[in-house]
């Protein structure tokens, strides 16, 4: 099953006329030299054409609403409907970002309370909600660390320590902030190699970027010692919140010694992922970095029913690293996170970590008992864990890709594969707290069944997927013969 392009549904002269002004007034005051000569190459379609086309396209997707989606480090949990419905109330949707604050007290109250709740649950001193995704939250964190050192006249600190298991965004961010990346190896248990860390820190160290639990699915056991070593060398600690779901309400980055944290609200606070975004990378700061927070932040004057809210700007936070978005970040995403946080409450937040961890350890135990190899068999799982298919690859010539593609045929989205790079034929599996025991059991059954296929009929396995709209796609050809737009649509505007 495939669907034509919307351009191929187009018929000259067909219009969905209800949606726009029926006519174009004369605009002779615009000089001809500045005017467009040929019409834009957009489809000409009726509303029904458009509704059917995009409904059909949606049906070609896997999603949380339709499938178990155990994608490691991505936290694909249920997206409660109230979050979208309530963030989409007309009073919120229709408000201009530069409308007076007096006409935004409702949304600002929500954002202020969200700042407060996130501050508490992470153990930090304050939160700025403006970063628009995890990577921008990372940028914010490292930029604040740089600004902190600069403000102290300690400008030679230009090295950011990054464990080798880190997300690619960490080293990419460090470079965007003008820093050099120093990679720190991992020991056999999946923890940071402490001896290597001691050797790496120096008067050049600006800070360390850590994900905890790490992308290896284990809690960093020496975190307090790491904090001591890095702080002792004059560096600061950055917490990558990609895996915050594992510890929400159970353990707090602020208590571990972190100076700054970003939170992926589209993961931990379920706002959702939207097929690639939007996200939100809210940052929490400790006392060292409080003066450097990005703006705007929501401030409150007065208490209780008398409280009023206003935007804090450069005037309130003079050392701020400044504005990182045109207005207030992904404000609508923040409202969704607020609703989610209120529906959970304090106990519900703690339960997120508890049941995410229960599901993960249960699934890990069941897969181990079914004969799969764990990357760190001696460790507890956090909210995720790693299965390595190295043995299957060696014995049966079946790769992680083959198993992942076959899982799609069984109606399960594949786990994260080939990440972290340290573990060969890696499956990073994150079930999340919102999945039931039956779903986890069914996933184990599918994995067992696929292993059986690998032993008896590896050739078929390598053909997978066979039940999806398309079979394996030629990604090499896609990169070599770039086809990034439908040509006939743009050629003559038809």
């Amino acid at each position: 099953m495939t669907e034509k392009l919307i351009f191929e549904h187009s018929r000259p002269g067909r219009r969905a006329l209800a949606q726009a002004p029926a006519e174009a007034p004369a605009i002779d005051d615009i000089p001809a030299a500045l005017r467009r000569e040929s019409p834009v190459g957009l489809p000409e379609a009726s509303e029904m054409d458009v509704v059917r086309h995009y409904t059909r396209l949606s049906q070609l997707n896997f999603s949380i609403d339709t499938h178990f989606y155990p994608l490691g480090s991505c936290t694909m949990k249920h997206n409660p409907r109230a979050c979208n419905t309530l963030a989409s109330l007309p009073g919120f949707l229709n408000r201009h970002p530069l409308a007076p604050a007096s006409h935004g007290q409702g949304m600002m109250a929500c954002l202020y309370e969200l700042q407060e709740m996130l501050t508490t649950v992470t153990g930090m001193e304050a939160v700025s909600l403006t970063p628009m995704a995890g990577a921008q939250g990372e940028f914010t964190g490292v930029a604040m660390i740089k600004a902190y050192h600069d403000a102290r006249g300690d400008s030679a600190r230009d090295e950011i320590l990054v464990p080798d298991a880190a997300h690619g965004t960490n080293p990419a961010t460090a470079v965007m902030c003008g820093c050099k990346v120093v990679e720190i190896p991992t020991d056999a248990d999946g923890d940071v190699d402490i001896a290597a860390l001691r050797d790496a820190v120096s008067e050049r160290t600006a800070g360390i970027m850590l994900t905890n639990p790490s992308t290896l699915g284990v809690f960093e056991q020496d975190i307090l010692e790491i904090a001591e070593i890095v702080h002792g060398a004059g560096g600061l600690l950055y917490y990558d919140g990609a895996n915050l779901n594992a510890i929400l309400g159970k353990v707090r980055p602020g208590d571990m010694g972190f100076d700054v944290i970003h939170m992926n609200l589209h993961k931990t606070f379920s706002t959702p992922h939207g097929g690639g975004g939007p996200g939100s990378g809210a940052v929490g700061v400790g006392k060292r970095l409080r003066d450097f927070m990005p703006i705007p932040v929501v401030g409150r004057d007065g208490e209780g029913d008398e409280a009023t809210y206003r935007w804090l700007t450069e005037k309130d936070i003079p050392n701020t690293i400044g504005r990182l978005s045109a207005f207030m970040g992904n404000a609508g995403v923040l409202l969704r996170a607020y609703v989610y946080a209120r529906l959970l409450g304090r106990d519900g937040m703690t339960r997120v970590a508890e049941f995410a961890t229960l599901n993960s350890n249960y699934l890990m135990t069941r897969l181990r008992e079914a004969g799969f190899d764990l990357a760190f068999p001696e460790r507890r799982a956090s909210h995720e864990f790693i299965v390595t298919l190295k043995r299957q690859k060696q014995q049966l010539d079946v790769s992680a890709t083959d198993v992942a593609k076959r899982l799609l045929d069984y109606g399960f989205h594949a786990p994260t594969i080939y990440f972290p790079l340290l573990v060969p034929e890696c499956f990073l599996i994150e079930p999340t707290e919102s999945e039931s025991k039956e779903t986890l059991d069914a996933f184990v059954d599918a994995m067992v069944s696929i292993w059986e296929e690998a032993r008896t009929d590896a050739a078929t396995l390598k053909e997978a997927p066979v039940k999806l709209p398309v079979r394996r796609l030629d990604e090499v050809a896609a990169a070599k013969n770039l086809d990034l737009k439908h040509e006939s649509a743009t050629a003559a505007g038809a």
Partner: protein
Amino acid sequence: MPFIPHTEDDIRSMLATIGVDAIDDLFDEIDPSLRDVRLDSIPERASEQAVTRLMGERAARDAGGLCFIGAGAYEHHIPAAVWELTTRGEFYSAYTPYQPEASQGTLQVVYEYQTMMTGLTGMDVANASLYDGASALAEAVLMAVRANRRSKSARILMPVSVHPFYRQVAHNICANQGITFETIGYDHATGRIDEAALERWAGEDVTALVIPQPNFFGVLEDVDRLTDWAQDNGALAIGVVNPLSLAVLNEPGRWGAGEGADIVVGEGQPLGAPLASGGPYFGILCCRKKHVRQMPGRVVGRTQDVDGRTGYVLTLQPREQHIRRSKATSNICTNQGLLVTAATIHMSLLGATGLENTAATCIANTRALVARLTAIDGVETVFDGPAFHETVLRLPVDAERALAALAEHGVFGGLSLAEFYDGLDNTVLVCATETKTEADLDTYADALRDVIAAQADAA
């Protein structure tokens, strides 16, 4: 338990399988000193009914007001079908399409979006979105520094007629990479880039010139001359556009005598994103094919499966952080995918004619508003150049106070520019989109007349 399906039986049986007595035992690798957490200041959970009432009250407080503010975010009618379709769970709750066979819906939408956006801008390539218009400009600057290999200066010419917040964001994001921004003033009569100020950089090593169209004042720049100036001086031309304006304005791919602008960015919000206090919106980035490997962000390509069926995949991934790590073109990972879905559906419904009618109606409505407002004694236009759907007006009274008084009449009269520009005291940037009726324009004019009279009396 909210959003957790486990029964007591499930929990018992799962713990037995794992071989522990309690869920807390699963956290036993964590130092006990870290495990005593108090969250007392976070409220107890509220029911969906209670949160619905709370949010309803808060949304009602923020509702209302007749909005004539533009300045980078514009009120447009969004067809009902756009968000009906966009919030289908299969789009809304999907992840980044890393498993293409299970993500053809999202991938094809992005491919259609890239096609529409290249059509609109006249450029060769569009990416799958950045965060917003301001951060897209920052990424375009970083991209230009990589792409312009002849330039060694990392010097960017940034007109002050670019949105003040965009300039701030570009500076804040690029500041740590040794990039310098040289500001170019504006002509006080026309509101356009001051060409004499620009000419001082002729013959110097310039990496890129930023060209806003329309500029922050709503004024249309002489984009052909500016593009030629940049390229004649070895600089790349970075266009900053309102995508809706391109339904009627010359597309950046045709600017100048050469092959057009090198990179084009813009705020995608006018294409189907609600105002929503500032986001989520999406950043547009398009470029010429020769720069594609320096482009940040995701991009979708068309290819075939093993049976020869057409399909879509993320491509050119070796530019991106998850492959190239510290050598990536950007750190961006999550983008604004759902907004791109909305924009694609929005453009499909409006088509070229609908977009053109919308853009032309915006121009006509702003013209009509300006005619009504300048009929009031002492209200005058500040610039005489042709404009898109925004204009700077000077008031005969204190602009901040006038805007506050208008807000009490339920009219958001525009943005005061004094905070952003020396010499623009008591000026207001006003905008009337296609959503405004004749009666709305009259309401604004009547309210402003009253406010000015009241303030003149008081003075």
